[in-house]
């Protein structure tokens, strides 16, 4: 409780943000450059999939981010509903569009990979389907958040939705194990350690890192922006009341 409320102070949060932002921006740029270089020049083509394997270095991190961001939103929603913590609402609100963007990327790059590999842009298997559902959940979350005159009400409603929709995340993760699908089973994040070659694993991990820091940068800026907007709303109200 007290830990939470220390960060509830928006000014403290802003100060913290301003100090870390340059650092994480730097990490993002560096890891992105390194990852791209390795993806294109040091990693070999796959013996089965040929050059198309290079799509993996953006497809898989996007898919990870899609699930990670949704989970973060669900966590923030729990905080928001139980502790009514304003920062949790802001974080959820700021994250949703980024998550939707990455989900879209996972879908689009997956399609672009699927056409040469499976011969179809789209197949209706469990993994693909559940990611599509995730995309709609993001859209619903964003729509619900903005559907009310009072921001607070939108935040709460969206929080409930995010928690209910969290059921989908394990389904995405384990769909490849529970149903037989065309899609590849997990080869990095599995209980017995990664099963892919280091020459491909490293660029993949570095790109994953880059995407995660990119998310951090954008989400922090968005929260900052939201904080200012909240202040603006209050001022505008006061101006109107003064009139």
């Amino acid at each position, binding site marked *: 409780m007290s830990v939470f409320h220390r960060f509830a102070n928006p000014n403290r949060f802003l100060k913290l943000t301003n100090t870390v932002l340059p650092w994480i921006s730097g990490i993002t740029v560096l890891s992105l450059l390194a990852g791209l270089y390795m993806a294109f020049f040091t990693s070999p083509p796959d013996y089965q999939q040929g050059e198309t394997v290079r799509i993996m270095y953006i497809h898989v991190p996007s898919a990870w981010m899609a699930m990670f961001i949704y989970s973060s939103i669900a966590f923030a929603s729990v905080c928001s509903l139980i502790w009514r913590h304003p920062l949790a609402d802001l974080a959820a609100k700021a994250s949703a569009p980024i998550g939707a963007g990455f989900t879209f990327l996972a879908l689009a790059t997956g399609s672009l990979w699927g056409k040469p590999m499976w011969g179809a842009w789209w197949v209706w298997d469990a993994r693909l389907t559940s990611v599509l559902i995730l995309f709609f959940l993001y859209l619903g979350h964003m729509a619900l958040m903005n559907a009310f005159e009072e921001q607070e009400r939108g935040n709460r409603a969206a929080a409930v939705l995010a928690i209910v929709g969290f059921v989908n995340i394990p389904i995405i993760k384990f769909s490849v194990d529970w149903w037989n699908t065309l899609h590849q089973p997990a080869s990095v994040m599995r209980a017995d350690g990664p099963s892919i070659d280091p020459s491909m694993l490293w660029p993949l991990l570095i790109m994953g890192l880059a995407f995660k820091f990119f998310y951090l940068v954008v989400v922090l800026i968005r929260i900052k922006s939201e904080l200012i907007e909240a202040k603006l709303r209050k001022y505008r109200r006061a101006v*109107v009341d003064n009139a």
Partner: protein
Amino acid sequence: MGLNFHLAESSALILEGPNGSGKSSLIRILSGLLRPRLGSLIWQGQDATKEPEIFQEHIHYIGHRNAIKPVLTVQENLTYWSGRDKDDTHLDMALDQFNMLPLKNTPANLLSSGQSRRLALSRLLASKRKLWLLDEPSVGLDVASIKLLEQAIAEHRSTGGSVIFATHSPIEVEAPTKLNLRDYSPLYNRALINLDDEEESWV
């Protein structure tokens, strides 16, 4: 037995009577929303019982419900019904008369009950009609707002308009005609009970 009345220009008719005596029903008949079972309605010499359209463009009816869309702001609500342009100064003047100008950009779902009622009333000024039909206009208004309403009615009458309203709490207007409906209602006048639905009206 029947109920018979006539309304001149610039006049005010107050309908009184206990709950259920038929004030609202009479107002709805006058507005053409209900059709009388018996009796007829004459508007400027024309029989308007069957075709309420011929005078509906001259009246403005405000009933118990405020017909406010909660998702629109105060200003949008007013614009929507007045048929005027959004920037028309008439709208601001109408809001100002009922002291709603500061709330112009507030979403209507945040309004208090009295504020909603004032918004409904400010429509009267935004669309200038000859005859106002008001059903308990002062419900929920505080003392100051009732004064504003009385002012608005006085001004309306000074420009040749008329007003008919039903009310339980006093609204002061100059030289009103009063009509107590208790005696015309089967609920309160037992003599009427066997006469089957004699709710009637001539204007």
